[in-house]
């Protein structure tokens, strides 16, 4: 399986029956393909849809029906449409259960940067800050390192942060970290990945769950 799909599949396992889920652009979008069959979740799109369905065949594309990435979508049974103010009231008001977002960097406190590049003028933020602030739970899905091999999980972010709010879970191609009050906790290694590799490729300090130290950690 493609490594991005591996990350998406792992993230999908965090979802529970009845969850209201907002998926960001990139790997998060792929999560929709991996939702376990025994649960029903509802995809929220901040441009005003609850109940986003699969991508339509070319001949069924409706120009008035797109997701927040401006890509054509469909809707499922029981869906609803609403205006942007109502949509963000849902997000900011804590009515979205889980948001799964992409990132540029994550700092040692679990705060993320995913909207702006340092030194450049800011010309776009979209709904990133709203989702991070308002969602009950935030999961980050990302490649562990940049294309240049640099750790994306850093002591201090070199990019402007998106929110003071830390995310709850970080899922990469190498590992899963839980974010707690005292920082990052490595709770899971991807299949075939060693603790040593994660330690080498992670700039930020992190604690290691007992299950991994004892070698009893089992990949889900």
């Amino acid at each position, binding site marked *: 399986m493609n490594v991005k799909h591996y990350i998406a599949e792992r993230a999908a396992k965090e979802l529970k029956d009845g969850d209201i889920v907002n998926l960001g652009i990139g790997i998060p979008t792929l999560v929709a393909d991996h939702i376990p069959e025994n649960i029903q979740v509802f995809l929220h799109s901040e441009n005003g849809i609850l109940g986003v369905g699969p991508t339509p065949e070319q001949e069924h594309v409706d120009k*008035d029906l797109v997701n927040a990435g401006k890509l054509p979508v469909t809707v499922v049974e029981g869906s609803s449409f609403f205006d*942007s103010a109502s949509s963000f009231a849902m997000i900011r008001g804590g009515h979205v259960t889980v948001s799964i977002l992409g990132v540029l960097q994550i700092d040692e406190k679990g705060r993320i940067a995913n909207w702006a590049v340092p030194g450049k003028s800011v010309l*776009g933020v979209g709904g990133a800050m709203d989702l991070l602030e308002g969602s009950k739970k935030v999961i980050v899905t990302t490649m562990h390192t940049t294309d240049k091999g640099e750790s994306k999980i850093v002591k201090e972010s070199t990019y402007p942060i998106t929110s003071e709010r830390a995310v709850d879970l970080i899922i990469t191609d190498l590992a899963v970290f839980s974010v707690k009050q005292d920082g990052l906790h490595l709770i899971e290694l991807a299949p075939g990945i060693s603790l040593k590799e994660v330690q080498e490729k992670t700039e930020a300090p992190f604690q290691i769950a007992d299950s991994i130290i004892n070698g009893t950690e089992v990949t889900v």
Partner: protein
Amino acid sequence: MGKLITCEEAVKKIDSGSRIMVGGFGLVGCPLSLVDALADSEVKDLEIISNNLGEPGRGLGVLVRQKRVKKAIGSYFTSNPEVVKAFQDKELEVEVVPQGTMSEAIRAGGAGLGGFYTPVSVGTKIAENKEERILNGKKYVFQEPIKADFALIKAKKADTLGNLIYNKSARNFNPMMATAADTVIAEVDEIVESGQISPEEIVTPHLYVDFIVLSGGN
């Protein structure tokens, strides 16, 4: 009442230097016929409040290319490289507002509020010049309402009184913008007799709509 006019008549009401809200999330739900009519007019130095500024040469992107836009307020302009270039060339002033804060500020403008506190953007670069306040132990930033001289919006259907309904995700910013401008011009695909839209389904009641134009009409 006679709210139906042509796109040409509509844009004649707009002077250079006006502050104009334009509905849409990208091109979806954008009143493209009204924007085209603006592109054919002589107005310039516009201040545009819209989530984006279209795409290169499409939608509001046409007005950017024609250098008619002096300032833009929105949440995401990066998707149109010509906007980025116009900004770098100092031809265009840009104000970026988080999407939820922007939609709420437009609603507040239409609802007669003096402003509100939102937790979104606290501690970020965007909040640098904003008033921060702790309320019930949580940090918030103050946001002023957003209003405009004109709102150009897109709906699916109007009745002759000006009641509006929208289509799917093309609803987006349009209903709020309908409430927050001195003059509201709605572009629609279809006009039906009053009474033909259920009172329960109407999203924008007619009191918000000053003029109606037909999409593709001129």
